[in-house]
């Protein structure tokens, strides 16, 4: 096969075709930026293919008001993102924001969630989050197991299909004239202020703007453009049941029923390096918790299971920054590509297009990892 070499010049190059990169690329295209989106391929770890699909607000930004506000803003922008994608691409990303539940299986957990709600209210303002006792939760969802003591509830929480979201962002980006370039593994970046050349094999792509949003690949790529993205993998395992009749309208932190009727269960956090396998012990634990919450799940068939690697910073909060040495180079990294898609597409991308990140994102600079050890 003779290699196609669409080596070319663009207004912006986004490295990373997952949810973060695709949301930014789509947002840039909306701003009239001629962008190229470089996507590595199947050998990449591709967190965007392994998402659970929550648009989750209630616990985000505990002791970090900037993150709470950024996440809440994303939830507010999400309906506009979903509607625009549906109009542009015909793809329904199945967004629903009916509020979300975090079930508590012990009194200690109830206590802890109650304290978190109060703390976050005091730090970041109220969002209507509250603690529900068992009777109140029973009014909202049927079939609870006897171990469920109650739940924390936030009316701002929701969920969406992460795979349809990824597909819609790609389709919308291409629809708006963006250049999607799959199977491009970036070997090198030659940086200069507002002038970047990205080398992929024999191809060279040039642009005055560069966005590194390559998930776990960002650790290697960011320093090439004067940026720093010290991310590590954190595995999560997910199981999916057969489709069944609707019984659960509200998303919860480890169980949600999709628009098609499947039930997704998950939420493990495992520090196991670059190993995205599934393991029986973790799957048993997830199944046990799911059945304790909804006993009727006990006889339902699991049809798929996978492990995927979250992209985690040392403190768990996102990184957004522009290179000081090479202005025009930006980095974006987070482990909540679905939740933050609204902000990435409709707030971050316009800021990158304008060339300056807003002061509200100052605290997400990687400089925070360089506290001097005085």
């Amino acid at each position, binding site marked *: 096969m003779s290699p196609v070499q669409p080596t070319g010049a663009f207004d912006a190059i986004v490295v990373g075709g997952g949810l973060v990169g695709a949301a930014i690329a789509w947002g840039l295209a909306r701003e009239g930026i001629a962008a190229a989106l470089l996507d590595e391929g199947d050998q990449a770890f591709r967190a965007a293919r392994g998402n659970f699909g929550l648009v989750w607000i209630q616990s985000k930004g505990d002791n970090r008001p900037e993150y709470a506000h950024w996440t809440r803003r994303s939830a507010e922008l999400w309906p506009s993102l979903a509607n625009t994608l549906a109009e542009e691409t015909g793809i329904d990303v199945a967004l629903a924001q009916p509020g979300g539940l975090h079930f508590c299986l012990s009194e200690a957990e109830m206590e802890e969630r109650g304290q978190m709600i109060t703390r976050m209210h005091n730090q970041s303002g109220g969002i209507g989050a509250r603690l529900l006792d068992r009777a109140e939760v029973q009014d909202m969802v049927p*079939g609870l197991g006897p171990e469920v003591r109650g739940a924390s509830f936030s009316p701002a929480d929701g969920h969406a299909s992460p795979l349809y979201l990824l597909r819609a962002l790609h389709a919308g980006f291409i629809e708006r004239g963006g250049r999607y370039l799959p199977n491009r593994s970036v070997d090198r970046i030659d940086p200069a202020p507002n002038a970047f050349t990205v080398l992929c094999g024999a191809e060279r792509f040039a642009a005055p703007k560069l966005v590194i949003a390559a998930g776990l690949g960002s650790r290697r790529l960011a320093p090439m453009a004067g940026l720093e993205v010290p991310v590590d993998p954190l595995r999560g395992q997910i199981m999916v049941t*057969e489709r069944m009749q*609707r019984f659960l309208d509200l998303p919860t932190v480890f169980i949600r029923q999709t628009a098609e*009727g499947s039930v997704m269960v998950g939420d493990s956090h495992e520090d196991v390096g670059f190993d995205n396998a599934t393991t029986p012990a973790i799957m048993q634990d997830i199944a046990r918790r799911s059945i304790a919450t909804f006993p009727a799940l006990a006889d339902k*068939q699991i049809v798929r299971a996978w492990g995927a690697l979250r992209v985690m910073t040392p403190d768990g909060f996102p990184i957004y920054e522009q290179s000081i040495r090479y202005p025009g180079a930006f980095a974006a990294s987070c482990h909540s590509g679905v939740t933050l898609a609204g902000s990435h597409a409709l707030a971050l991308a316009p800021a990158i297009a304008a060339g300056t990140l807003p002061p509200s994102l100052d605290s997400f600079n990687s400089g925070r990892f360089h506290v001097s050890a005085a």
Partner: protein
Amino acid sequence: MFQRLNPAPTLAVHLDFDGRSIAADTGETVAAALLAAGIGQFRDTPVEGRPRAPYCMMGICFDCLVEIDGVPNRQACMVVVADGMKIRRQHGARDAA
């Protein structure tokens, strides 16, 4: 429509499909037996109610789902026939309760 490769099937295994009696070969799958009996629709889909029949016959596509002996969403292509099996067409999504 479909014909068995085995030129001399036993037809010794008796199945019930939605009240209809079907004779199956020993060792074949439920999907093979139903197709050989001329049954073209195994289920309709949960979201849009569209008719479905086996596609891959090797456990991947989940289009051959039927209810077998009271258990919904069984993959007909992965289950070997047994005498007296009661099989029902799968209509939409299974119950959640």
